[in-house]
């Protein structure tokens, strides 16, 4: 169930994970898993191709960087990425408000 819920919003979650600070792949996945209370039931290896695509779309940029003495690919949210995240957040809020309105009636 969680996978179906998350799959449609994976991009938004990945963009949100790097909003506060640049992170490498494992840290992004760990942040999403931890903040979702372990609900991200998704093969973690498939997250990397999604990150590459977001980078290809100009929403993220990445570079090799030393983190804790090791070389990692670190992802940063671009200006376009911030705008895209804001748009998806608004869509998500409209969606949850609509669903809540129906469930609460």
């Amino acid at each position: 169930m969680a996978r179906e819920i998350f799959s449609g919003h994976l991009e938004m979650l990945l963009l949100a994970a790097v909003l506060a600070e640049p992170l490498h792949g494992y840290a992004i996945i760990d942040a999403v898993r931890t903040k979702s209370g372990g609900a991200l039931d998704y093969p973690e290896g498939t997250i990397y191709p999604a990150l590459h695509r977001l980078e290809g779309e100009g929403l993220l940029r990445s570079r090799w960087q030393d983190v804790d003495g090791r070389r990692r690919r670190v992802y940063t949210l671009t200006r376009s990425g911030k705008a895209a995240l804001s748009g998806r957040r608004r869509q998500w809020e409209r969606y949850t408000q609509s669903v809540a309105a129906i469930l609460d009636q």
Partner: protein
Amino acid sequence: MSEPTLTQRYLSALAARLPRRDRASRRLLAEIRDHFADSVAAALAEGRPANEAERQTLERLGPASAVADAWKVNRPRALRVQKMTVIFAVVVVSGLGAAQYAAGGRDNRAPELRPESAHAHARCATVAARHGAVGVSKPAQARSAPHRVGSCPSSR
């Protein structure tokens, strides 16, 4: 020679499913390798035994085939477009080069700079002299109508 670890087998299986000589897929493999190291280290820090830490990491990553499939689906469009653009540019430049070679090396200089232009001026001067016109064959006039090089401008 020691037997490959689960991690090495997984990476080999994934590498076999990705395009070779592709910088982006090499980067993906490097990131998955880093992911393994981080995930195993985190599990060890939680007190799990090494084999259990590696097995948990593999489970969370998902099958190598799923990662390769996701890679094919998500392969950045920009990279594909970039690759196609480079191929197109190489084809066009090669085609132009071949056409020029076939034409025997065309003179790309401006018309007034070509050797035949001086010859044309000389010829027109002769024609002008015959008709009594003065100055019709000045180089400036030839420059103002470069498409007429090779034929004399009309006398007024």
